[in-house]
């Protein structure tokens, strides 16, 4: 693993290092304060190609770091280079960077197609090329059938996929994804993860943030762990992996047949607990093996034609794992 972090600013780079810097995303002693509130502090980090996971509890600085590397925010201190470009020069950077933000807002009145197509026209593409790339992006996220519907009428998962399509539509070399799996049902989640892996295999840098550890663990080549605006761990994820696997995760699900799902899940020993909510649509499940659980859940949903409303990981258990992983480093800052 080539990812490096430190609390010290980098010194003069040698020629090979400079070439490497042009193929990496480099944070050099970067801090961001919102008035007196800390966003991130003294981050020095080099992210190589491949999939990098930014993980940390809510408020740890993941989105701030992403907004800084895409120029939506300016650092209070330090410098950032994305493949050798400064994020402040958006007219260069965004030709090869796509950012799927968490902002769940869209220009009013646009259809899914118009949302991507208009974005590509603002890039400066001619009609034919913009049209072709729009359909390719919509096809990649499985949104072709809903392309002519207004985005306002989309479900949360569809809106998430529309944002993803926008981010990949111009075929960027760097893809920054802020909680991209939020709101997706298990099957869409698996498909999107496969898409990320394919894009990474094609040579794309993918920076993905999540507060769901097992997801990041599953797809990332390298992981940066953030807490309270500081990078507290990075690189070796084996300890994290063991810890994740030892802690049961708690999944909340809403669907039309929760009793059936619970009974099918209970046939497997890696499901520790499943309890029904009083409204007869909610289900809480605890499992020790997230990967096997999600695979099983997908097949149960397909085999029984279950209408899924949401599947989310409860934060409580995740925070317990963070607390263990971060330990004293996350305290007393």
């Amino acid at each position, binding site marked *: 693993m080539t990812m490096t972090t430190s609390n010290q600013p980098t010194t003069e780079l040698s020629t090979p290092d400079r070439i490497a810097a042009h193929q990496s995303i480099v944070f050099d002693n970067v801090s961001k304060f919102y008035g007196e509130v800390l966003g991130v502090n003294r981050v020095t980090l080099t992210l190589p190609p491949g999939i990098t996971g930014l993980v940390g509890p809510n408020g740890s600085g993941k989105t701030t770091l992403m907004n800084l590397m895409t120029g939506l925010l300016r650092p209070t201190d330090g410098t950032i280079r994305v493949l050798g470009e400064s994020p402040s020069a958006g007219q260069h950077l965004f030709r090869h960077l796509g950012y799927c933000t968490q902002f769940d807002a869209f220009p009013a009145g646009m259809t899914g197609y118009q949302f991507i197509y208009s974005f590509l026209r603002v*890039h400066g593409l001619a009609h034919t090329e913009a049209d072709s790339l729009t359909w390719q992006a919509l096809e990649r996220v499985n949104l072709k059938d809903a392309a002519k519907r207004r985005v306002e009428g989309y479900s949360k998962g569809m809106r998430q996929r529309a944002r993803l399509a926008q981010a990949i539509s111009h075929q960027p070399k760097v893809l920054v994804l802020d909680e991209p799996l939020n709101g997706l049902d298990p099957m869409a989640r698996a498909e999107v993860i496969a898409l990320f892996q394919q894009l990474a295999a094609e040579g794309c840098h993918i920076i993905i943030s999540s507060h769901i550890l097992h997801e990041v663990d599953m797809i990332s080549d390298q992981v940066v762990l953030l807490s309270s605006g500081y990078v507290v761990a990075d690189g070796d994820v084996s300890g994290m992996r063991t810890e994740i696997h030892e802690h049961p995760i708690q999944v909340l699900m809403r669907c039309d047949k929760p009793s059936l799902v619970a009974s099918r899940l209970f046939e497997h020993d890696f499901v520790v607990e499943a309890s029904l909510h009083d409204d007869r649509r909610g289900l809480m499940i605890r499992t020790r093996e997230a990967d096997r659980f999600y695979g099983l859940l997908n097949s149960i949903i397909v085999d029984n034609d279950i209408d899924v409303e949401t599947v989310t990981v409860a934060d409580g258990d995740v925070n317990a794992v963070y607390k263990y992983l971060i330990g004293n480093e996350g305290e007393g800052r």
Partner: protein
Amino acid sequence: MSGLSVPETAQHPSLGQDPRAEPQTGSTDWGMMGRQLWGVLRIELRYSLFSRRFLAVAFLALAPVGLLILWALTPVAKEIAGGGSTQAMSMAAWIYAGYLSTSVFLSALILFMSLFRGDILQRSLHYYFLSPVRRQILVLGKFLAAWIAGAVTFATSTALIYLLCFLPLGLSGLSRHLFQGPGLGHLMIYAGISVLAIGGYGCIFLLAGLFLRNPVVAGVLIFGWESINFFLPALLKKLSVIFYLQSFYPVPPPQELFAIVAEPISPWLTVPGLLLFMVALLALASWRAQRMEINYGED
């Protein structure tokens, strides 16, 4: 849902030649910037012409037209007709002065103040900021879209208002005034003033929307300043848009009571002066947009 498919044509730029590659450094790709400007314009024109805010603008533009149609049916209109086209021209100048300082002013406020502020409040400004478009082009594209929408609307309604002022003269009287008298020229001048006014006020309100969290307060203050312009000393008069626009009037409107008269400026200086003023404000707006961060939480 079927599995995600990857079209054979979808190839990452790193694997082949990227047709959207940037121009060589050091050169300015005017063609690319032109296409980006059109990309912004086509989105913003849609918002300027087919949105709720345009309904308010259309009301402000057409309400005086409706009132004039009703007026044309009254006995007062027949009295004006008795006074001939000279009296109708004075009336047109008087009506236009009121129309300019209320309908045109307020419409510019509605159209331009929300260009950036509206996107910030809707949390959708990042749509543009995530594309490789220069912020200067973004500012210009948004401004031009609103200006085109306002110019088309108010040039049309100005023409209608002017024609309605002469309607009591009858169709033959109107036709004589337009084609044998100064009517057509005056109509074109009034429409031109409306177009300039929309652009001039628009720049101010665009800038206010970029700098202020609550630009309506600025709008009210500017409205007050422009409204008392007739009362201001000659030097202060020159710090307003309305003063320069009045110098174009083909027929001077009747002066208000206690009005302080300042020497008008030649239209040959006023047009380039107003255009320079607009360019300066747009440059300032671009500078501001260049430094903007996306931090919706603060708004």
